[in-house]
Structures are given as structure tokens and as C-alpha cells.
């Protein structure tokens, strides 16, 4: 096991329900990263289609296998006829597939509808984290955060997906199907979280190195809580950073309201208020922050932040305490 053990956030109600149940299928049906546990109209529409497909495929599979077994062991005459081939191989598949085509294309139309969204967020995929910008009505940046989307439950959210390095894919299976982040393009994804809760997402298009460790969370909040959170996010950092931050961190990280304005890594202005660190990999507490600073290459091999091994323990402790306090 890794010393800095990976972790899963504890905020989700559906997950705690699933935790006590061992059967994998049941877990899949209740997971916080599962397409079979839909938590939005968009994901529900796909999940219904999925069950229809699973049921249909199982039925067809059973029929074909029974026919094959009959052919080998019972040799019924009708099964050897040309008509059997034409009916089983052409007529029935054509009927079934035509129906399915119409059904799924209609369903796709419903999923790509473009009404007005009540919240617009831009997500930029980076090797191996997510830059998240909340946008104002005019499209300007309202505030920036990372690896976490908080959304008001019951409201429609549009996520504008972009990348300035390689391909990524934005996937929160409980809320929507995946959509790629393609350099040079902006793709738009729409979902409405039905309930409050915490859902996990993960990059689904291989992006090199620690692609496996590029996760994020979507937290659906009651509208009032969301507004309070957004208000807090707009504020600058509460206190000035310790000298070690300016010396070592500011070149890559921004703390709004301070001279630290680096752009290569996540904006840390309110890092203490996030539920996870390192793109959904570590819990967010003082110990984990210290571990991440000193051994980020061990926790997430190949990521673009160096391990600050030689930083004095006092400075690390001071940094960790400071960052934890940035709520």
C-alpha cells in the first residue's frame, strides 16, 4: 500500500449506504461514480436506455444460444432451413435494430437540448488536474477553483470543456455521459443534479503519466448553501502567506489578494475549503497537505509538482497549517 493512502471523500450519503454492502453488483448500483446510480435527468435517461439494452441483449443472447444448442443436439428441420437464416439473420435483427436506432437517436436529441443554463462553468483539463472557472452571465471569470465543482441542486449547469495540453474526458457517471476535452475546441456538457450529494468523476481519456489519478468531485448543494459558498470563493485569501509559500509555491500557484500569481498549478486561494487534494486523490487535512508538499512525486508519480524533500519540517508544517486555514 502507498504510505500516503488514497482516499475517498466521506461526504456522500449514497456511498455510506453502499459501504456496508459487499456484493460488487450492489456497489455498482449505488456507487458515487456509477452510471447505474443516476442522479440527474440526463444520467437517468441513459441508465433507462442501458437497462433496456441489457435486457434486450440478454434475451437475444439466450434465444441464439438455445437455437445453437438445439441445432447441435436436436437437429430440428426448421432450424436448418433457409427461412430460419433469413428470419433469424436478417428480418428480426432489422426490426430490432431499426427500433433501437429510432429510440436512441430520439433520446440523444433530448440529451443535447440547449435551453438556458442557470450556471455556467468552464473546466480546463490539465495534465493531471482540472482548472475550474465559474463564469458570470457575460462569460467573464467570476472566480477560479480546482478539482471540484459545487453546483446548486435542481439547477441546470452547463460545463464548457477545453484543454490546452492533451486530450482529456470529463466524466461524472452519476450525472452525465462523458465528453472529451479537445485542444482547439470547446465542448459543452449539460446536467442538472437532482439531489444534494457528492459524486466522483475521473478523466476518462488517457492523458499519459498518472492519468489514473486525475479525479474530481461534484458536490450538489442546496441553493442557499451554494450561494454562500460562491460568495466565499469570490473573496481574496484571508491572510498573507508565510515566506516559504512566496519562495517555493508562488511561481506556480495563485493566492488571490497576495503577490502569489503563478498560473501553472491550481489556484489555492480557498484550498482549505475543498474536500480533496491532488485532483481527488488525498483527503484535505494538515497531514495530507504536508505529505503532498514533501512527497508529491511519491503520491502521484510523474505529476508536474516536484517533491519538496529538502524543505525544513518547520516550514512544511507552517505551510500546511496556513493552507488548511484557507477556507
Amino acid at each position, binding site marked *: *500500500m502507498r504510505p500516503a493512502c*488514497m482516499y*475517498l471523500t466521506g461526504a456522500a450519503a449514497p*456511498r455510506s449506504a453502499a459501504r456496508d454492502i459487499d456484493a*460488487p453488483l450492489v*456497489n*455498482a448500483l449505488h*456507487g*458515487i*461514480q*456509477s*452510471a*447505474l446510480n443516476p442522479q440527474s435527468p440526463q444520467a437517468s435517461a*441513459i441508465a433507462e436506455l*442501458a437497462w433496456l*439494452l441489457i435486457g434486450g*441483449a440478454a434475451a437475444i*443472447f439466450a434465444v441464439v444460444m438455445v437455437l*445453437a444448442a*438445439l*441445432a*447441435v443436439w436436436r*437437429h430440428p428441420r426448421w*432450424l*436448418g*432451413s*433457409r427461412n*430460419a*437464416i*433469413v428470419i*433469424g*439473420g*436478417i428480418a428480426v435483427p432489422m426490426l430490432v435494430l431499426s427500433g*433501437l*436506432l429510432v429510440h*436512441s437517436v430520439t*433520446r440523444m*436529441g433530448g*440529451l443535447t437540448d440547449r435551453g438556458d443554463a442557470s450556471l455556467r462553468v468552464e473546466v480546463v483539463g490539465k*495534465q493531471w488536474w482540472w482548472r475550474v472557472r465559474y463564469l458570470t452571465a457575460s462569460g467573464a471569470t467570476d472566480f477560479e477553483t480546482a478539482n471540484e465543482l459545487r453546483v446548486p441542486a435542481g439547477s441546470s449547469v452547463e460545463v464548457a470543456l477545453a484543454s490546452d*495540453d*492533451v*486530450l482529456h474526458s470529463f*466524466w461524472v*457517471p452519476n450525472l*452525465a*455521459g*462523458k465528453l*472529451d476535452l*479537445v485542444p*482547439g475546441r470547446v465542448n459543452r456538457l449539460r446536467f442538472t443534479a437532482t439531489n444534494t450529494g457528492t459524486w*466522483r468523476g475521473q478523466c476518462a*481519456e*488517457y*492523458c*499519459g*503519466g498518472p492519468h*489514473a489519478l486525475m479525479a474530481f468531485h461534484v458536490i450538489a448543494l442546496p441553493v442557499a448553501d451554494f450561494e454562500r459558498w460562491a460568495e466565499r470563493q469570490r473573496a481574496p485569501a484571508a491572510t498573507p502567506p508565510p515566506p516559504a509559500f512566496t519562495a517555493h509555491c508562488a511561481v506556480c500557484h495563485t493566492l488571490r489578494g497576495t503577490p502569489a500569481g503563478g498560473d501553472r498549478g491550481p489556484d489555492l486561494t480557498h484550498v482549505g475549503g475543498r474536500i480533496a487534494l491532488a485532483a481527488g486523490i488525498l483527503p484535505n487535512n494538515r497531514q495530507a497537505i504536508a505529505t503532498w508538499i514533501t512527497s508529491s512525486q511519491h503520491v502521484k*508519480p*510523474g505529476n508536474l509538482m516536484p517533491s519538496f524533500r529538502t524543505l525544513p519540517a518547520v516550514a512544511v508544517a507552517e505551510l500546511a497549517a496556513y493552507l488548511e486555514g484557507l477556507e
Partner: protein
Amino acid sequence: MSDERALPLPNPGPRPAGEVEELRRIWAAPKGLRFLTVINNNYIGVLYVGAAFLFFVLAGILALMMRTQLAVAENDLVGPTLYNRLFTMHGTVMMFLFAVPVVEAMGVLLLPNMLGARDLPFPRLSAYAFWAYFIGGTVFFASLFVGWAPAGGWFMNPPLTTEYFSPGFNEDFWLLGIGFIEISAIAGAIEIIVGVLRTRAPGMTLARMPLFAWAMLVFAVMIILAFPAVILATALLELERAFHWPFFTAEAGGDPLLWQHLFWFFGHPEVYVIFLPAAGMVSMIVPTMAGQPLAAQRLVILALVATAFLSFGLWVHHMFATGIPGISLAFFEAASMAVAIPSGIQVFAWIATFARGRVRLAVPTLFVLGFLFIFVLGGLTGVMVAAIPFDWQAHDTYFVVAHLHYVLIGGMVFPLFAAFYYWMPYTSRFPLSERVGRWVFGLLFAGANLTFFPMHVLGLAGMPRRVYTYQSGLGWDAINLASTAGAFVIAAGVLLFLVDVARRFRMSAEDNAGDVWGAGTLEWLPGGNYSNRSIPVVTGRYPLWEQPGLAKDVEEGRYYLPNAPTGTRETILTSPLEATPQVLMRMPVPGWAPQVAAFFTAAFFMLLTVKLVWLAAACGLVAVGALLHWGWSLDPPPLPDAVDIGGGIRLPAYASGPTSQAWWAMAILMLTAASLYACAIFSYLYLWLVAPGTWPDASALPRSSYPVVSAVLLVASSAAFGSANGSLARGATPAPAIAAAIVLALAGFGTEFASHLAVDPRASAYGAVVHLFVLLGGFFVAVAVVLAAFAMARRLAGKLDRVRRVTFDNARIFWHYVVAQSLVGLLLLHGFPRLAAP
């Protein structure tokens, strides 16, 4: 179907003694170290299958390493760097070094005997393709051991694979290694097309041709049309990596999705390229095991052709999640679903054949039944992922990993094992053990389902593919552990199979175990390296069932060509549709040229990969030298008299023009070139569509006098070659006219080259794609010039005249093709921007 008529035998009388010994001597494999020069299909086929199976085992070991890493959550046995290389190599080796080569190899091994030919029409080309593949593949695999293995995934999506994000040689190994192995696949495909269309036994019309030959014909045509797309794609990416031509860089007007279009235009047909030959094998095994002709043979053939056709229209279903607008996606969804129908036809035809007969449950039958189970399931999940909204969830998850393994293991590996058990007695002194075979089947069937079925659940439960580790608590742990256990069950099955092969397989064409199944097709005739003693007349689809005494008559030389009248290796060229004998084709004997050429071609590409440019160039020169040496021995002198093959048929022993096998090979090569060029045109238009802003206005284009001059020079060069043809036909020397054609073509190309000098290929995608066309134009002109110069040299050496003229004819048709292609290029580069300018 069989029109049973008592045909008179072509050579009814007793044959003179010593003919069989003569055939044996002529077709004997070289001994000792010279065995490496062997070219006969029986040997090359076995070596080829063996090498491909070796890569199957190696890639399987990589899979075991991955499954071990994923057995438990948060495992740190394998880190991301190695894991990323493992899955890249596993996919790449399985697809490019195992799946395609092994079916091509089965074609090399089986086709000549199945068609009643003595060998494939270009045995040295098979040898070249095999050795190039084997050497290149081995070096490619070895890149793992020195840390140079690629890590871009088997479809190598840029920008991750561009130099900026993946510096070092690793991705170059993929690009040059695989691009090169594709060339070997194309060489094999040309061989197979000409073999199937031109070397069938007399009377074997297309309708009587065995299903496997039909499948291989469709397979080879698909390779010809699809593989150039990936060759072009790898060339573009290598140009971007090495010289910074921004085809895939968005800031300069390129687009990463261009790669995905080109790759999947190849990549999806590739799946059917793998499946169709396997389906063809099943269509051979099922009738034998049921003791009945295949039901609805014509429908099954139609299904093969329809699959090929449709498979070119559904590449975008790999790109449903890239944000392409819904309306165009719906078209590809429809095509993706439609392709299920031809597979349905075949499945029901096999079921119907079983229903008509008494089924023998031998090991090949078990594997066929296992194939039906796994493949039908994989096909059904294929329909599921074709439903676009569902794909948005399933894409790039373990659901897709499950689906593709069901399709490939079901659709290809199980039929292949069925084929190994079925055809082992054809190529070995002993068949494989039925008792051990049942265990092998049981382990593979249980293992495959245990490994891959749970992955369906895993994917829908949120696990993406290509992750080197995962967190506990997401409901994935137990499923992963089960899957890993399954992988080791598969490994046990493969190991058991290898043990049985080691015990039982003793290669022999002469003393093979023979027709142990009571099959109906020609490959089960007794024979030797020369295939059959005499070449039978075929009157139906299952000659051994329908023509009593056929084996004995063939063996005693009562059919065509019971001997070797020209004293060397030979086979009968027949007409493509009706298979009437046309020419007695003399065939080459072993020599070192193909092997030397293969070794140095491989060395050229591999040294280029590690940027040892001068050494690579030296190897390239040796390779070209060996190829020219080989080419020099082509087109042997015509024989004055026609040769008697029996039955009153006398065949010329020399042919040129459309009757000759060389003309056919060149025509197919031109089709390959046209497909490559079409992909380049697609790239040009696509890049324009994505970023029309990087295209210059009419005023910034080269003056229109450039393309006009270039076109006039090129057309004049074609006319000059035409006049060379006239001279040759009159018996005069064509050399001066050829020389004029060369000068004119070089001047024409030079004009075009000069017209684009002001454009920087590194500045924009426009510049890059313009220079791509210049590069392609230069390459084709260079090849045409080499062929033309070669023909001139043949004339000077006295090896080219009005009768003996195959090298000239090949140069000539290629020349006209290159000129036509260049004119299209001029129209595109100079006409299109003027047309499209606002």
C-alpha cells in the same frame, strides 16, 4: 450445387516413373543454414503462424502483468510509467503483430492447397513480408526492455504523442515500427488477392471457391483500402514529431481529431479484417464437423462483402464522445448497427448447417461453439455501444474493454484455436490430442468469460480504462480480483496448448496426418511441398465429397500438370472468374535476396527510429540493392513453345499484360497508392474545414503559371512514355523516349516543388499539408523514375523486347498513374484555395 458429370481425366494413362521424385527435388526446402532462404508456402506459413503466436504469448504476458497490478486496489507493483507502456504494447502487439499477421499467415499456409495451386504466386514476397515482420516485430517488442517502448496507447492519440508531450524515441518506435509492419501486411494482401483470383484449380469458379478463400479475398481488399490511412497518419505524426509540421496542433490550425479520423478509418475496418478470415475458417470447419455443405453459401458470401463495405462507414463510432454534432453521429450509429446484420446472417447459417447434419463434438467443434457464445455476446454489446447515449457512459471504460475482448477473443482467438486443432493434421505428422484439447478449450472458455464478463459491470460502475491503479471503496475491488483470476486461467489454457503442440506438432507436408476429419475441400488431398501431384478439375464446392476417387486420381497424376515440364517450380494461372487455365507460370526458387532485403528494410526503419540517420541510409541502400537484384531475376525469358499440361491443353509459359500475375500485382499496388492519396486529400480538406483562416487568399498563392507549366510537363512525360511503348511494339529501342519522359517528369515535379518554396511547413497546418503533397508527389515520381530506369537497364542488358516486356509494362502503367495523381494534386493545391477563397 455440384454438377456431377463424369469428366474425362486429362491424363488418364499411367505416368512415366520418376515424375514424383522430380517434383520432390524441385520443391525441396533448402538444407542447413540455407533453410533461411525457404520460400515455399508450407514453410513460410508455419513460420509465420508460429511467429504470430509467439507475439500472442508475449502480449499475453504483458496482460498478466497488468491484471496482477489491478488485482487489488492501490497496488504499487507496477507504476504508471511501466503500466502505460504495458497497455500500449499489449494492444499494439495483439493487433498489429498477432491478429492481422496470424490470419494472413493462415492464408499463406492454407490457400494454395485449398485452391489447388502449387504455391502462392509471389513466394519471395511472402518470405520478404514474413521476415520483415518478424525482425521488425521482434525489435519493436524489445524496445520494452530498454525503456524505449511507446506509451501513447495503441491508438496513439495526439497531442499526447507529439514531441512536446512525449519526447524521446518511444513513440517513434510505434510510428516507424508499425508503419513498416503495415507495409508488410500490404505486401501479403497483394499476394493473397492475386493468389485467390489467378491460381485456382481449373473449374473452381468464384461460386465454388471455398469460403475461407472468399474471406481472405475480402480481407486482403480491405487491407489494401484501409491500411494506407494508418500509414499516412503515422507519417503525418512522425513529420510533426521530427520536423514540427503542425498537422495536429490546434494553435497552428491543425486538429487532434484529424488523427482520430484517419486512425479509425483504418481502425474499424481493422476489426473486420481480423474477424472475416476467422469467420471464413469457421465456415470451413462447421460443414466438415456437421458433414453437410454450408447452408446458404451465397448469403454468407454476400455477408462477407457487406461487412467489408459497411465497415468503412462507421469509424466515427469511436469518436462519439469527442463533441461531433449529433446529426452526423446518427448516421454513424445507423451504420454501426447495420453491420450487425451480416454477422447475424453468418451466425444463423452456421446454426442451420449444424441443424442439418450430425455434429461431431471434436475439439474444433467445441471451439466453434465457444466462439458462437463469446462472439454473439460481444456483438450484442457492440450494438449497445453503437447506441450513442449509452456510449457516452460506456466509452473509454472497462465496458468497452470487455466488449472489444469479447469481439476479438470470440471473433478471432476461438476460431483460430478451432483452426489450429482442425488443420494441425494438414501440416503436422500427428494431430493434437483430443483429450488435452478438451481441457485447453475448457480453460480458455472459462478463463475468457471469468476475465472479461465482470468488466462489463466494472465499466458501468465507473472504472475508466487505462488506469494503472484505482481506489478502494468504489465497488470495483472484488470484480477486479475475479477478472485477474480469470486471466491466469486463460494463461493455464495457453500453456497446456503449447505443451501439447510441443509434443505433437512435427511439421510435414508430405507425411502429414491427412484428412482425419473427412473434409470436402482440396487442402486435404494428399501431397507434398509441391502441394498436389496433379492439379484437379473442380466441379463443385466440396470436391472431395462430390468427386469420388479424386484423391487417388490426383495422387497418380491423372489430372493437369502431373510433372514439371519446364524443369522448375511452376503453377497454372487461371482466369479470375471462371478459372480456365491461361498460362503455365514459372516460379522462383530460393535465394537470399528477399531475406537480405527484409533484414535491411527492418534495419533502415529501426535505425531511423533511434535517429542514426546515416547508418539507416546505408541499410536502406543495401535493401534497395537487394530488391533490385531480386527484381532483375523477375520476368524470365519466354519459352518458344507452349507446354502440354494434359487433357489436350497447351499453355504458353510466358505472359505479359493483364494475363500476367505481375500486371495484377501492379494494379493492386496502384489501388493502395490511390487509397493513400485519397486519405491525403481528405486530410487537406479536413484541415481547411477546421481552420479555413490559415489558408491564403488567391493573391498569396503561387502564380497560376506554375501549375500550368507543371501540368504540361507531366502530360508530356506521359506522352513520351506512350511513345516508348510504341517503339517497343515496333521492335525499336524505347530507351530515348523513356529518358525524355524521366526528364519531363522531373521538370514537372521540380516546377511544382519550386512553386511552394515560399510556404513554411512549420508555420501552419496549411503549410504542412501543402508540403505533404509535395513530399508525396516527389516520392511517387522517384519510384516511377526508378522503375523506368530499371526498364531502360533491362533493355541495355538485352532483357527487354517486344515479347519479354513485363518490367516495362509495370513501369508504364505506374507512370501514367503517377502523372494522373500529380494532376489531381495540382488541381487541389492550386485550384481549391482559389475556389474556396471568399
